């Protein structure tokens, strides 16, 4: 029994350590800031030329990535708006027939209430309380 408790404690500690000490990602634009800093350092001519070349390459890559990201975001927004409009148009007759003319008020309210209840039930303390009642 003692061994079992120790194993459980070891496994739990290990899991929490793994979660707490997740490997950190490099800060955004770390390389860009590093190269800017390197360029201002006193180094020999060959090293300086290499740094400047790498710095220019990084700047070009960052610019290209930013343009690509903006394009993707715009496409997602347009696509999402179009899809939402199309779904609403297609579903409106069916929703009106099933939920009445005032569906646009109470269906969103019901969905929001459902979401709130779901997040409340998802809380570990509430789950423990429900389990103890059950």
């Amino acid at each position, binding site marked *: 029994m003692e061994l079992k408790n120790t194993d459980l404690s070891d496994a739990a500690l290990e899991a929490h350590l793994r979660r707490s000490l997740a490997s950190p990602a490099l800060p955004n634009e770390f390389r860009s*800031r590093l190269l800017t800093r390197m360029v201002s350092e006193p180094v020999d001519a060959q090293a300086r030329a290499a740094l400047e070349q790498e710095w220019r390459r990084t700047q070009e890559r960052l610019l290209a990535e930013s343009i690509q990201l903006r394009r993707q975001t715009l496409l997602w927004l347009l696509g999402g708006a179009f899809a939402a409009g199309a779904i609403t148009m297609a579903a409106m007759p069916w929703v009106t027939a099933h939920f009445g003319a005032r569906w646009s008020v109470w269906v969103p309210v019901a969905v929001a209430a459902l979401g709130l209840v779901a997040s409340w039930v998802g809380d570990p*303390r509430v789950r423990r309380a429900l389990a103890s009642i059950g």
Partner: protein
Amino acid sequence: MTAQTQAIDETILALREQGRMEDALARLLDHYEARVYRMCRAFLRDETWAEDVAQQSLIRIWKGLPGFDGRAALSTWIYSITRNRCNTALSGRRGDELGDEVLVQLADENAVDPSGADATSVIEQLVSALPDKYRVPITLYYFEDESVTEVAERLGCPVGTVKTNLSRARAELRARLDAMGLGDWTLWN
């Protein structure tokens, strides 16, 4: 040292010999910048401070690369520069005082209601309060995909020493959790 690191080191040194310093720099940063940064995070904890010291280390490495004599492996040299930078940065601060502050604060927050404690946050703060000789290896161990060999290489010490310090760090954490009344894992979220 992993086979991948060894191959990268050889490539960097070959590029240096050919005078292709920009390619050498690109390879060096691709392979080492994240590793050096993680090492600085493990030593220094603070994100901004770690970034600053990681950049200082990489600049020092870059400036020293043309004169690197190959007596040790390139990775060993890189990590020893980083380690020295971190130790120099740390020498101005006393980690033990921070540790005591964190423990007092945690004891106040959690003594009453262990079930309300956020385990991840508590563990994070307890690790942060460990003495450097335990905190750095245990942090690096999880940062580096739980590889004892990688940690030993970063810290420039034998694998056995790392294993011992990891085991003592865990024991210390368990003892501190017990002392705070948080040793019963069934109460945790």
